[in-house]
């Protein structure tokens, strides 16, 4: 592995840890969801560097694409449920 690639990997790992911390400690839920998607995106780039393009494709499409939007769909439903629950009580 060349020096440039090693440095890039280190930066990506740091970005991944930072995004994961943001996802855990972030106050706003949408920001946390986006940060979790970012973790997957960086992970897919790391898989590519580690010469696993098949895994990288799955991670990018499912981890950072579909899962993120699944979380948003669910978040919308939970909020709608909270609102109608407040009306009933």
């Amino acid at each position, binding site marked *: 592995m060349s020096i440039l690639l090693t440095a890039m990997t280190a930066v990506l790992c740091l970005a991944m840890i930072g995004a994961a911390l943001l996802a855990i400690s972030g106050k706003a839920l949408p920001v946390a969801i986006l940060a979790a998607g970012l973790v997957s995106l960086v992970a897919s780039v790391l898989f590519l560097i580690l010469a696993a393009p098949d895994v990288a*494709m*799955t991670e990018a*499409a499912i981890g950072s*694409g579909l899962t993120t*939007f699944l979380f948003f*769909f669910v978040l919308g439903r939970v909020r*709608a449920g909270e609102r109608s629950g407040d009306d009933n009580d």
Partner: protein
Amino acid sequence: MIKRLVALLLLVAIGTIFTALLAGYEADALLNLTARYYADHAASDIGAANIVTAIIVTYRGLDTLGEVTVLFLAATVVGLVLALGQRHEKAPRSLVPAGELLTTGTRFLAPLIMLLGAYVFANGHLTPGGGFQGGAIIASGTLLLLLADPLKHFSHALIATIESFAGIFYVAIGLLGLVLAGGFLDNRILPTGELGALFSAGAIPLIYSLVGLKVGAELSSMLANLSATEEL
């Protein structure tokens, strides 16, 4: 306080274990026995240029069938739960229209994304990717269509038909392998052809196309279900 201390001790213990593992790690210079067999025999026996695909579809084909089954069950349960929780009032929903950029971009990009998905699963035996990746890419195209127009109605009958036929033909090809070739899901029921050509590697392109259609249909139906039952 005690709880935090226990958590901290646990973290330190796990950290120690992983540090020891990392310190003792040495990359293998040689492939292990199973990996060497796959690396030596995938191209000559199976005829697939992408060894990962040869392993997933042929050597470990039964596992793939299991994974597809798990995904099918997950999609079914999502549909079931959403249908049960649905309220019966069917008031026409009025939504803020999606922006110009998203609408126009979707018109341009959605067909290309779907085409890329089909390319990925049809070329699974040659290039990285395959049925699962292609199916997920197709589903992300569906997602884009849903984002541009949340009221868009997808034909569930069509999705169900594609999904069922892909599943039935997948198992049927597997059973044909029992009769015509060496065993269940053996890809050599068709000629393996020339290494690297599109029509090569026996039944792998066929199986992976079916898996791709099945996964794409399942994930798309999940997204369409979620979007259709959303209360806004």
